[in-house]
């Protein structure tokens, strides 16, 4: 199985390493050459330097043969656009996009891409934790 991970920050690099450990063939795309360092010494997957909006970069990363694509650059709008391009232009089966802004995550949630919104996850987790710890009599 082939995966392309676009954006090699804390999230992208960890996802890439996790998939590689599961036996996926993973190619990572990042604008910054130094981001390769986040993948560790023993990285055997691919690494392409370039912007994910650039289709020549996507194609060099093997997007046409990808079963799954993870889009996790540090820009919400960049991720939204790349996710849609990957889905519509290359017809990739699974496209997972990270969107930090909960409002935009909701707007783009019904377009066939999987959306992961860490901010919403944090909000829900924090709320649930505090609510679960609240004394019963404060409930209305």
């Amino acid at each position, binding site marked *: 199985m082939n995966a392309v991970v676009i954006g090699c920050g804390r999230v992208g690099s960890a996802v890439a390493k996790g998939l590689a450990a599961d036996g996926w063939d993973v190619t990572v795309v990042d604008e910054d050459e130094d981001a390769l360092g986040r993948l560790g010494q023993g990285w055997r997957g691919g690494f392409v330097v370039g912007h994910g909006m650039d289709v020549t970069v996507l194609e060099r990363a093997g997007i046409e043969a990808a079963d799954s694509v993870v889009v996790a650059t540090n820009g919400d*709008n960049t991720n939204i*656009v790349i996710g*849609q*391009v990957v889905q*519509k232009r290359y017809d990739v089966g699974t496209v997972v996009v990270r969107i930090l802004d909960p*409002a935009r995550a909701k707007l783009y949630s019904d377009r066939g891409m999987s959306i992961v919104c860490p901010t919403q996850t944090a909000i829900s987790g924090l709320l649930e934790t505090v609510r679960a710890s609240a004394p019963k009599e404060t409930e209305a």
Partner: protein
Amino acid sequence: MYVVVAGGGKVGSNVTRSLVDLGHEVTMIEQRPDRFARLEEEFGPVVIRGDATEIAVLERAGIARPPELLLAVTGDDEDNLVISQIAKETYGVRKAIARVNDPRNQQHFDLLGITQTVCATTSILGLVEHEVPEHGLVRLLELQKEGLVVVEVQVEGGSPVAGKKAGGLALPTGARLISVWRQGRSELVEPSTVMRPGDQVLAVVPTTAAADLRRVLLGASK
């Protein structure tokens, strides 16, 4: 007319000034504090501060009314694309015009349904092509929605079509020769029209077949 302008750079601020002078109601959105401060001095309440890709900011600008026109003219193509998509698809804005900064991103706007775009680089290149006749084919007008382009081609002495009748040419599918400009006047192309060196041929052709049309009329490029 109510217009929302996303982006207060050179394009956004100049367009806003013109629209206000024409008597239109405009709200301009600018994110950078320094630029916002300067714009506020000139435009007052017409400009609001915020990230125009955030729903709350767009709503503050009145996107839900909705405006008759939205202009997405920031310096970021991703932002312009997302702003246009949200305006059209979520708020039913009828007309959104997006600025394309990097011409390589044009294909993304086309793919994602943002059909009305303006790209300064592409426009300037078009003008440059017009000034360089040896380039062979001048793109006069792109009809993006129709996927057609109106072009002008100058027939040279060595062109494969020189001396041939228009009716016998193997043009690419969907291409039509409209007129030839020769000796200071324009003639509509009929099947019997003989192509002559020096003719300036006006043609309409599917955008994807423009290079093929050039090859038919001028031969393989040198």
